[in-house]
């Protein structure tokens, strides 16, 4: 089995303050399925990389679009599923 890999936090100044959309979602706990969720907000620039090759996630704040009932004002979005509003 592979060993557990490290995570590393950082700040991406180029990403900070950009308005972004996230084609998000994830597995549905307790089922074999997944679901899609959409978010729009402001990238803070904070990121976290998991493993090698690094899998990068950005923190998105000030959400102007989020799923009904989503309680938070922030969400972590996988970089490959994140689109700047100009994309």
């Amino acid at each position, binding site marked *: *089995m*592979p060993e*557990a*890999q490290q*995570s590393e936090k950082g700040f991406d100044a180029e990403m900070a303050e950009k308005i972004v959309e*996230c*084609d*998000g*979602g*994830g*597995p*549905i*706990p*307790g*089922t*074999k*399925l*997944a*679901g*899609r*969720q959409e*978010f729009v907000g402001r990238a803070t620039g904070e990121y*976290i990389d*998991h*493993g090698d*090759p*690094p*899998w*990068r*996630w950005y923190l998105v704040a000030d959400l102007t679009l*989020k*799923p*009904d*009932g*989503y*309680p*938070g004002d*922030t*969400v*972590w*979005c*996988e*970089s*490959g*599923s994140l*689109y700047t509003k100009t*994309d």
Partner: protein
Amino acid sequence: MPKDPLHTKLCDMLGIEFPIVAFTHCKDVVAAVVNAGAFAVLGEAMHKPDEIAADIKWIRDKVDGKPFGIDLVLPASAPPAGALKELEKEIPESHRQFANEIKKKHNVPEPKGEQALHQWGGLNQEMARAQLDVVLEERVPVFTSGLGNPAFILEAAHSRGIKVFGLIGKTRQAAREIEDGVDAIIAQGTDAAGHTGPVGTFSIVPEVAAIAGDTPIIAAGGVTTGQHLAAALCLGASGVWTGTLWLACRESDSDMIIKEKLIAATSDDTVYSRSVSGMPMRTLKCPWTTEWAAPDAPKTLSAPYQMLLSSDYIQAANDHRREDLMFEAAGQGVSFVTSMKPAKQIVIDLVEEALDTFDRLTSESPVATG
């Protein structure tokens, strides 16, 4: 028309006879489909890394070197972390009360054991990364990303001889993944089971095919017959991704009650609902989905809160094998799931139906119109 309309670039890429991909959570179905000349992908999103490694070994032992795939769900968004117990405290009392009313009205018993939701513990970024590492280490022939962009893993996968397919629900996702270099795109329409995007199969497939260049497109969503296979190829796909079709097959480990419900179901019996998880998914209708669709029902909560509400119902329904309560994810093509055939027979039927369809289309005389 080519001599064999079913021989596509997906067949060449994978070395398979038929451009049919079975998505299943059952290893026996994978082995049966692969050995019948098609391709199969095992959904492993809810399995721990050591379980995935064991399943890969089991399949390898059964398929004599033929290719197969492993599907993981790469989470694309995640709320700030919180323990389940803490999250449960945030569920509004009105929603708890409504869930309890449903349970009382439909005489839903208590689950027999610990809820699967709690046993499993949930997928976080670290767990998803550990699952991926098993796929890389085991050099699985094909890795499919059921949700989320697999771009970051492409180089590592390709260097190990692993092909990477991405499942998308929007054309812009396909455009990005094609540019990133995935080996195939699974374009999934809203007719599909489980998690789906909002676009129909007949729209998303040709839209993605138009931008795909040489990248094969696999059509997903509502595909359950050979006519669907023929139609998908006409839309520009190089193959089809099928899920619901295998749930009731002989080798499937689905509960017999679920198999019988699927066989009896028509497209009218599926519902696109957020009531199970807070995320949109298509399932067979059941009392839970029906009650939450009522005009006086509260608005569903987001994930993971809605799942915390529904998990008692789901676990109890399955634990007690209550036919009236149980449900399963199912696509709109469920109407065509009409018997418990062996997986090999399903492959043969799909192929023959598709070839008949092409024959009919090319042999019929033009109809005169006034």
